[in-house]
């Protein structure tokens, strides 16, 4: 049984605030209008839902194949960011470009142990991003790094200690699965994505910053990935807000302006 952290009333507020408040507690976030959209794309079984779940719920759980899509609202400072989890199955492919419409950032996800999953990104998913914002930010994310990278395994032990270690941390077994996709391959893909989008490589964010290797299972690099992207889309939100505000006629403001110009008539 899972024991919640709030046993000790006198627990320091720091610890309390460190824990993410469960979704239902976040002031009916669902009703708020999102300011900006992030979309996770990638082949089935690369772990898109798990990544999002790890980030939002702070844990890894077995997920079933996503049907259609799902989305979460994340409060980031004063802004609401909607993160769309799409279905990787071919069956739902047609919906992809609708999900991507007006997206500010797209996370192209592959499985580091599966070369084909990287190839699919270019073959199937890249064209879906045509409907995204012109200045859309791209991140290439290789998930399941815990299977190939000892570093990614360590994250789990740290996490486990922090959580109060219900089960002994799994033996630091050396990763057994062969890594099929190297980081360089992802970086190269990032370059091709930018060329496809006809974006100037030099003006864009550098590939080193936009290619991640993560593990939803251990939490390795997951927060880094989302929070880096959140910070990057902030300018988009501001731009959107300023664009939205300009066509609105502010009667108060108008009156004020008239008053200042009234000099010549009086």
């Amino acid at each position, binding site marked *: 049984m899972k024991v919640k952290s709030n046993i000790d009333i006198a627990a320091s507020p720091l610890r309390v605030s460190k824990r993410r408040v469960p979704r239902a507690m976040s002031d009916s976030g669902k009703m708020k209008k999102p300011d900006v959209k992030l979309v996770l794309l990638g082949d089935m079984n690369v772990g898109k839902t798990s990544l999002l779940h790890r980030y939002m719920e702070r844990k890894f759980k077995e997920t079933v194949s996503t049907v259609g899509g799902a989305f979460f609202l994340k409060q980031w400072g004063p802004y609401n960011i909607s993160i769309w989890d799409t279905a990787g199955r071919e069956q*739902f492919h047609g919906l992809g470009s609708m999900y991507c419409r007006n997206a500010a950032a797209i996370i192209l996800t592959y499985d580091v142990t599966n070369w084909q999953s990287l190839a699919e990104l270019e073959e199937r998913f890249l064209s879906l991003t045509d409907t995204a914002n012109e200045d859309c930010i791209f991140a290439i994310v290789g998930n399941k790094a815990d299977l190939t990278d000892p570093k990614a395994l360590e994250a789990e032990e740290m996490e486990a200690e922090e959580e109060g270690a219900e089960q002994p941390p799994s033996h630091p077994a050396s990763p057994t699965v062969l890594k099929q996709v190297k980081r360089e391959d992802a970086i190269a893909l990032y370059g091709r994505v930018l060329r496809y989008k006809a974006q100037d490589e030099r003006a864009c964010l550098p590939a080193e910053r936009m290619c991640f290797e993560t593990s939803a299972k251990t939490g390795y690099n997951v927060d880094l990935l989302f929070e880096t992207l959140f910070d990057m889309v902030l300018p988009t939100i501001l731009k959107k807000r300023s664009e939205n505000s300009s066509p609105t006629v502010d009667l108060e403001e108008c009156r004020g302006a008239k008053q200042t110009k009234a000099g010549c008539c009086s």
Partner: protein
Amino acid sequence: MSVKAFELVPAVERELLMGDKARINIECIECCGKHLYVGTNDCFIHHFLLEEHTTPKGKLAFSAEKLLHKYLGLKKPVNELKAASALDRLMVLCDNTVTVVDMVNLEAVASGGARIKGVLSFCVNENPVNGDPFCVEMAVIAAKRRTVQIYMVYEDRVQMVKEVSTPEQPCAICLDGYFLCLALSTQYMILNYNTGASQDLFPYDSEEKKPIVKRIGREEFLLAAPGGLGMFATADGISQRAPVNWSESVIGAAVCFPYVVALDEGFITVHSMLDQQLKQTLSFRDGHILQDFEGKVVLASTKAVYVLVPLPLERQIQDLLAGRRVEEALTLAEGAQRNIPKDKFQIMYRRILQQAGFIQFGQLQFLEAKEHFRKGQLDVRELISLYPLLLPSSSSFTRCHPPLHEFADLNHLAQGDQEKVQRCKLFLISYLREARSTEGANGCREDVDTALLKLYAEANHESLLDLLASDNACLLADSAPWLEKHRKYFALGLLYRYNGQDDTALQLWARVVDGELQDSTRSDLFEYVVDFLSFCSNLDLVWKYAEWALQKDQKVGVQIFTRRAVTEDQTGQMSPDAIIKYLHPYQEATLLYLEHQVLDRKVQKEKFHTHLAVLYLEKVLSLLSQSPVPDREVTEAREQLQNLLKESSLYRVQLLLGKLENTELLLERATLHGKLEEHDKALNILVHQLKDFPAAEHYCLWASASQEPSYRQRLFHLLLGVYLDPEAAIAPGDEHAHTVAAVDLLNRHAGAFDALSVLTLLPEAWSLELLRPFLSGALRSAMHARRTSQVALGLARAENLLLKHDRLKYRGGPVLVSEKKGCQLCHNTFTEPDCVCLPGGVPVHTHCAAQRARNSPRKQPSTTPSNHT
């Protein structure tokens, strides 16, 4: 687990429609207020009046009354019906033709203009762009022409206003504002018929399944997507809600917020739009039509019509809460916010939050519970009342009805698990603390504070004292027995004190100090009580407990008086005189009190000083009379006495001198003689009786401390005289000692002596070398004095000279005035001998100078008018 969100209620039975005619099927329905229209495949329109009523069992039921049926005269089925209640018209699609008929008598409108041919399907704009209320906007899919036409339908005519072409043949249509949502043969799209802008949504295959296009709200549509999905799309082509996963073979769908209701071959499925989960499944065979009309979901099989009645939201939420599905319940409540008037929603939502909080509280999820209590603005007493005995017996609180939770009390909740009870209590402490600091305790502060006090006392919590020492509303009558029970007597005293019963508090504390009651809260309780008394403004109380305190410990007890703030009143009960009188039986206390008055407060009163000196003296004497004599204490006591004698000049010297007459306290006597300026006596005592030469020297310095240098000189000479007095009866060995002392005195204070008179005093036999430091010192100081005065003289002379020089200089030479000489200011000549001399000796007329002075009043020339003849 599922929710019971809807109930399926029959509306029109088969008998009313087609009886036992097997081949007749329902083709379409329309519901407008209480009017239900049913179109059948044999070209009939049936018109029913649908009455809603509640059965004795409390269930909702419908009774249908058939008003009319009308044969349209063709052998084709009636495909679509749509009512326009503002116009009293019903639009009928039959045989690819839309006709407008009267809603009441179902007769076609007379004029031939109200007819559109070649129509595949049509829809009405529920968000019209035209402002005319007596005009309905309608979009029509033209059969086989890949166009959509927009019509305005009036009471007696229809008018086409727009025609747009589409890339493929549309097969389903929906309209909102200018936005057409179309199902084409291979994809869905949004088309703005005003601007022509289009937006592809997503592909699907119309061969494979029937498309669904459903307006669900302002500029938002629900579409059937491949893979059994219900997709949401806005007019911008964006999906703002996650899709719901219904079945592959959905025939009809509608939104009844917050649910998406879908019909397939065997079932009605209900998904929540809030969390996309399947919430309810109802079996429904031969389902044919599912449509919503003004929020009412109506279904039809081929033979009968049903209404899907939503259960009241509150009941759904209560069902969820009963199943402890807190998150779902809250999500549902929040989702319904838009559909419920604000004040009503607030009341409902608060109650749900409170219930949710109690469920989580019962599961010991305190963090969540607290958040929900806070957001639900829970009456704190609801929570307190769970804990037995915490609410004051006088509290008027009764639990809310119906109850917010199922717990009788904490013991019921914890089922005897003491650890649980403890955790709940700790939670309540933290909760009440927060409630106190916020608005939460408004109106029931007494209950909150009393409960908190009880919890603190029980848990031996350190904050108990903080609570009582600060502003609080603890009820005395209820708290006192509780504190006694937990032996918190000190705290109880504080409570009494807070309630103005200082006497009771002191009584209680005195009993604790005396060991009658046990309370280890404060080890320094006695000091606390004394301190309290020293501040206490009730003097009766002070006198009452002063005796007890002084008997307990004079040294501490006297602080009642010494710490007391000084009042102006010097004659009343608390005047120093009265206090000293009162303290009389307590010698130590008296002494401390006088010390406080004389030494700390520096009260200049003879009586106190004398009294204190006498007490000091008595103390010394009593110590000296002990055997063995406690040396250290005697030294200490004498030091105190000596200090007082030296520093003070107010005490009665003669009195003390008399008391010292027959004692060995010579130093003190010398001091007293000094006070009387009987320096010879004093020095005699010091030199001859005490033989303490440094003391004698010190005496000289002390006695002359604030006097002229000559006074000091006189004393030193006196001392020297005493040293050198050949007459005095000196013991044989002393003569030498006196000589040495005299030499030392001279050498050490060379400057203080009048060297000449010293020389005459000194015996001839003394060597020069012996007196060298004295002589050189005396010489040097004499020399210094002479030179200093010479310098001063020289300086004074110089100053005088300078002044003389200045005087001569200012006197200046003669000023010449003649009749030929002109005035510098008016340039006229002088006629009179009177003139004013400007600085530099320039003569001008007196009136010119006066005018100039008037013209520039600020810069008045500081000339001294001088008359020259």
